[in-house]
């Protein structure tokens, strides 16, 4: 394989990992409360900035990662408790507008505190070296992103498919009333989904900063929107689908830019969102879901 193609693949997988991390949380939250959480992308931003703060204080990276996980989880739970819980049972549009409002509030609070000036976000120099793999090589940052994502997704699947909490989460997502009748304290289960999903988004923020080197308060908008696209590709509400959708989107985007003539490179977002509209049109339940129950 040529170095160029390999490089594109690794790049696409790394980008796909970031999308997958954001999309999984997005999908978990949608699955359990049927809410398109517009503020989800902003947790990516919160994650990135809390990492930056820790690094500035000289905290070692593993601790920073832990801190980001905690900040993401707490932020997600706060949003759920303060805003979304109060609006449970309201019409779909109301919920969506509320998440939009939360997103705008978070973004502009960040603008107020941090100003719109982009900041440099640098992984340690060691992370930027290239690792030879046979005749080709890949950047360590990309390898770490891909590796860490795989670990996190594995942990997530263990939680969701092998624990009491995970079973309760899936049960609640499918039938909230029946879950309550089983003695599930659904508010706590929903809180857990927000905590886990938001923590994943925050970690994605840390990795996002490391990969692209710059962060700003509006950084979460595009990943949030693309997470939705990833979910639509894989079927909204399905965790496995969201993960797959994230990787497909990441690879497709990189290949679109990498393999077409450079003139088209700028049209990347046009490509992504036209893809969204196309899929919504042809197969609104997602490419990998055979049937989907409709609770709209």
């Amino acid at each position: 394989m040529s170095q160029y193609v390999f490089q594109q693949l690794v790049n696409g997988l790394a980008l796909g990992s970031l999308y997958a991390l954001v999309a999984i949380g997005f999908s978990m939250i949608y699955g359990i409360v049927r809410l398109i959480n517009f503020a989800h992308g902003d947790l990516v931003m919160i994650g990135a900035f809390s990492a930056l703060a820790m690094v500035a204080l000289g905290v070692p990276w593993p601790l920073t990662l832990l801190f980001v996980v905690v900040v993401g989880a707490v932020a997600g739970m706060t949003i759920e408790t303060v805003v979304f819980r109060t609006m449970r049972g309201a019409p779909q549009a109301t919920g969506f507008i509320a998440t939009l409002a939360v997103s705008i509030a978070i973004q502009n609070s960040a603008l107020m505190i941090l100003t719109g000036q982009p900041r440099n976000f640098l992984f340690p120099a060691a992370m930027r070296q290239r690792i030879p793999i046979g005749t080709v090589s890949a950047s360590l940052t990309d390898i770490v992103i891909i590796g860490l994502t795989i670990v996190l997704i594995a942990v997530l699947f263990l939680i969701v498919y092998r624990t009491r909490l995970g079973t309760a989460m899936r049960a609640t997502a499918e039938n909230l009333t029946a879950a309550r009748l089983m003695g599930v304290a659904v508010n706590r289960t929903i809180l857990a989904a927000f905590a886990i999903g938001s923590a994943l988004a925050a970690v994605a923020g840390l990795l996002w900063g490391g990969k692209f080197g710059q962060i700003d308060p509006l950084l979460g908008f595009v990943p949030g929107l693309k997470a939705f696209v990833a979910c639509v590709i894989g079927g909204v509400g399905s965790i496995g689908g969201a993960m797959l959708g994230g990787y497909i989107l990441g690879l497709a985007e990189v290949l679109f830019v990498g393999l077409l003539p450079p003139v088209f490179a700028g049209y990347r977002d046009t490509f992504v969102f036209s893809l969204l509209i196309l899929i919504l049109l042809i197969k609104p339940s997602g490419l990998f879901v055979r049937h989907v129950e409709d609770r709209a």
Partner: protein
Amino acid sequence: MSKTAPEAEKASPLSGFSVAVATVAVVAFAVWLAQISLSAYLGTLLALLFINVALAVSLNLTNGLSGLFSLGHPAFMTIGGYSAAILTYPERRKSVMLPDLPEFLATNEVALFPAVLAAGLIAIVVAIVVGFPVLRLRGHYLAVATLGLIVIVQNLATNWSGITRGGSGLSGIPRLTTIWWAFGLMVLVIAVTWRVKFSSLGRAMMATRENPLAAECAGVSTFRVRMVAFVLGAFFAAIAGALLVHLISVITPKTYSVLLAFNLVVMVVIGGTGSISGAVIIAAGLTVLSETLRPMEESLGLYGMSQVIVALSLILILFFRPQGLFGSGEPIFIRRFFSGRFLG
């Protein structure tokens, strides 16, 4: 009031119409007074206010009456803004800033009215093309698809540099929009929306909003109704976008962003989904509020503060008065006023 508004309107169509005309005349006189007495800044602000009202009311036509959750207004405003700006752009500036423009665009310089009309027509075409796939989607899927439309339009505007001059945008657009243009647009949008709301088309729209299946059963083509609402909204949005760039004299791909879509939704929701009076009042109020807060933001260095306040107030409204300040109707005194019944 025992009769419903449409009946009341029928009861005295002439007096209703004349009251409306009289109202417009009175307001126009007030605008004229304002124009001769106010500073240039306040004049611009007033024009901005009129355009915002037009935008909010037109979004209310799409979202409020028909229940479409479209966030696509900024996309159509961008399309309208660029279309009109390229048409009115002075020929000598075109040769410098847009040397790659096709021949027929490069050598022509159009007046504001045809340019604005062209902007509206282009938006109609785009809305129809986009509407076919997008309007089949429901609820938040439509919302996200229309957000995607904003990103697509911004992305195209950034990259299609032969026509749009890319990310740096067009500046020095002639300031052709007077307060009267803005006022005229506002009156037009309110009049059209009002007529639509109290017509059979409006009832079909509201039926589609409340229960699409039942509306279909009653013989309403919900798709066509949605399309009409979407296209009308897009037409007005494009005209507003076109007038706005001729007021502030610049346009970039980011001039009309998602934030704007949010603020328009705020106006509709706080005013009351489907309430024209509500949209008018809140749009005017919000414009004044954010202009008053701006100097404060600047002096404190807290950019974004007013937006935080707006977002938080929206959340509070959703908590305590989810139907909006005016519900989906029009306050009785306003209906009575325009139906001419306040006289007898």
